[in-house]
């Protein structure tokens, strides 16, 4: 096979898979709980910065994973209690409040770490041969990890008791309460888990992107577009949305350039927002 084509195909696959993991946190928070969390990107940034701090302290890269999860969980708890819970039936105000939170977090990161970018050392820096074309090893590792993570989460959601409880709460909150599910606590835990996934995504992509205070904005917009196009509340929606947005952007970037890629994504998102806001696989 033409090695160039293989590389380009791998680029597209990489884009789609990492996008799915980046959106995962928001798919949980927005798709299941209906919370429009505009600070989602900032939690990804938080994970990336935690990874940076761990690396500066000389710790092995894997140490960043529990550190980031802890940091996100610690922040998510008060956010859920004071920002999200009072605004559960005011989705518009949730949007604004989380946006204010994102501004706050962005500025706090800028004050703490400065406005410039930070570079992390790539944990695995060789390249491997995939179908005859060399490809950076860390990217391959990342793709594998993301696939495993998503598959595991899907399985858990379908099969486990906790997953069933979450599905019940999402389907009919009052009825779930009536059968004894503590929806308050479940919603809080789901929210925290969603944000922890965001932090985890940040740790994963940090070595490959510019880590700077404004990185979150792009992620949160892209995540919304993925969910709008793919559909909320269904894993199939997440995957199809990531495939659509990530695939189109990557393909257009390869064929024309990055601006064309992003503009195409915006056009697709606008169309879906206008005509089919429940996306390809969402419930109407």
């Amino acid at each position, binding site marked *: 096979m033409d090695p160039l084509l293989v590389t380009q195909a791998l680029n597209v696959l990489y884009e789609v898979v990492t996008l799915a993991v980046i959106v995962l946190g928001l798919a949980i928070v927005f798709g299941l709980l209906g919370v429009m969390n505009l600070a989602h990107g900032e939690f990804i940034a938080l994970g990336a910065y935690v990874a940076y701090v761990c690396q500066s302290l000389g710790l092995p890269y894997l140490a960043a994973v529990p550190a980031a999860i802890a940091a996100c969980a610690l922040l998510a708890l008060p956010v859920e209690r004071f920002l999200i819970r009072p605004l559960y039936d005011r989705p518009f105000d949730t949007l604004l409040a989380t946006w204010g939170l994102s501004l*706050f977090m962005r500025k706090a990161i800028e*004050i703490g770490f400065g406005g410039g970018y930070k570079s992390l050392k790539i944990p695995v820096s060789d390249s491997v041969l995939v179908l005859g074309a060399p490809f950076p090893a860390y990217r391959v590792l990342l793709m594998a990890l993301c696939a495993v993570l998503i598959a595991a989460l899907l399985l858990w959601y379908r099969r486990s008791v906790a997953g069933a409880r979450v599905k019940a709460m999402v389907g009919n909150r009052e009825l779930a309460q009536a059968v004894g599910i503590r929806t308050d606590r479940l919603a809080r835990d789901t929210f925290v888990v969603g944000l922890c996934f965001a932090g985890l995504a940040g740790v994963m992509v940090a070595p490959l992107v510019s880590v700077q205070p404004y990185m979150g*904005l792009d992620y949160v*917009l892209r995540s919304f577009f993925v969910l709008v196009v793919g559909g909320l509340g269904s894993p199939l929606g997440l995957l199809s949305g990531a495939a659509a947005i990530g695939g189109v952007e990557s393909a257009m970037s390869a064929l024309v350039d990055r601006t064309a890629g992003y*503009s195409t994504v915006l056009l697709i998102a606008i169309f879906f927002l*206008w005509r089919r806001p429940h996306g390809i696989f969402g419930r109407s």
Partner: protein
Amino acid sequence: MGSLAVRSAVLLLLLLALPLALGEYWAFQLGLFFLYAIAALGVAMCWGQAGFLPLGQALFVGLAAYLSGAALIQWGEAWWVFLLLPFAALAAGALAFLLGLIIFRGRSESGPYFAIITLAISLLAFQVANSWNEVTGGYNGMKGIPGLPGLEGFSDVYYLAAVALACAVALCGWLVQAPLGTLWRAIALNERRVAYFGYDTAMLKAIAFGLSGVLAGIAGALYAPQQGLVTPELVGFALSADLVIWVAVGGRKRVLGPVLGVVLVGILSAELRERTYYWDLIVAAGFVFVVLYASGGIGALLAPLERLLPGRRKALEPLRAPAPKAPRTAVTLAIEGVSAAAGEVRILDRLSLAIARPGIYCLIGPNGAGKTSTFNMLTGELRAQAGEVRLDGDTLSKPTPYRLARRGVGRKFQIPSVFGELSIDENLRIALWSGRTSLLDWLRPAPRRWDTPVLAALRGRYPFLDDGARLASALSHGERQVLELSMALVTEPRLLLLDEPCAGLSGEETAQVMAVIRWARDTLGLSVVIIEHDMALVKQLAEHVFVLHQGRLLAEGDVAAIRSDPRVHEVYVGAAE
């Protein structure tokens, strides 16, 4: 509106006098912020009045700025270039209106999705502005824009901006008090209900959005000569975001709110941002606080101050309202073989019934028989998959509440849905204006004083309706039912659909409502279809009864015939007597 003129004149004089106190640099700085304030006013009109939030308003500021800049570069020497600037603003407004119309007609509710659509559109515009080097100059921007002829000093544009701001404040103040403002506020509260009164809510919202586009356009058109340079930054997310923050903190419901927000937060930011790192944190925290606890913003604090202002309005003479535009003939309704389903459940199953004369009809049947669904099918909430509905002999295809209201079909819901945060007067007026007003009427103050014999009669029967300034949310449940019924009657419909009009009413109130229904039938000559469970009511009111069962018409006839029908007995096991 005399008080409005006085207040605007005072504001203008104040603004014009400021540079004398503050110096040339402050005039330069304030000039720019006055432009932002004009754009922020547009956001406040959409958000605070009509209830939708545009998150990409910088798109219109930037568009007008690029157009104005290009015009100034081409024809900057000529004196008439002043006249081109309003065209740049109007172009932005036209784009906003078109976008609004397309988006609002394509979707039924605004909410957060509209905000994200506008955000996405503005991001797209930023991409275009950033890469289209030939036209916009790309990242480097459109350079070398000359100042307006005669206004080349640093502080000169300030005066122009001050005048523009005062005019914008006056315009918005006018619209807020005009019928259009009332309609916008009603849409923000319950858009579906407004549509049921025969208003094209998509058009109304698009007008608000178009207005905001014009205001943003004025800001952009004056920005270009003041700064001399237009970069894609102007179209970017940062300015859109700042506008929202300024409006939120300043207060979105009051006209002066955004001006306060821009001036206080914007100027403080500009001064303090370079001194303390923490200023932006404070602004972000303040914004979150306002969203959580103080949605009125700073403007809400000014409410007591407003009472000091001159010109409290006195009670005005009522005017006779024009007649409704819908035809005044008796309505005929024919439903033939209509079927509708939701998923697996058959809601309506080859339903056929007909109304040929004015009168009081009752629709009865056990729970789940499809009574409310019949109403929903008539007004377009439930899609019929088979069968035909003919209104006045014309086939009704794809009905919408708005279209049906225009043809004289009124509806009252089971749970009273009056506009709680509007006064009784405003509620009644909204009903009164439906079907009688055009766009021009919405801008005039006169329709606020309209009255009709029907309204006067209703006021006579229900004295509490006279207390016009009282908020509808302060009424008891029974009073709200009556208010909504009055609103429905005031539109003088030809076919009135009432869904359990006496639900939750005391015996006395019920008797009053029945009297009103009979009176309406006699005076207006309309057909009333009432869904009712209370057989006593049905006995007293109905001239003709339809019995529905499992989505089909089981039996029909006058009350006596129904009572003796064995099929009806079978269905109503243990029917109330």
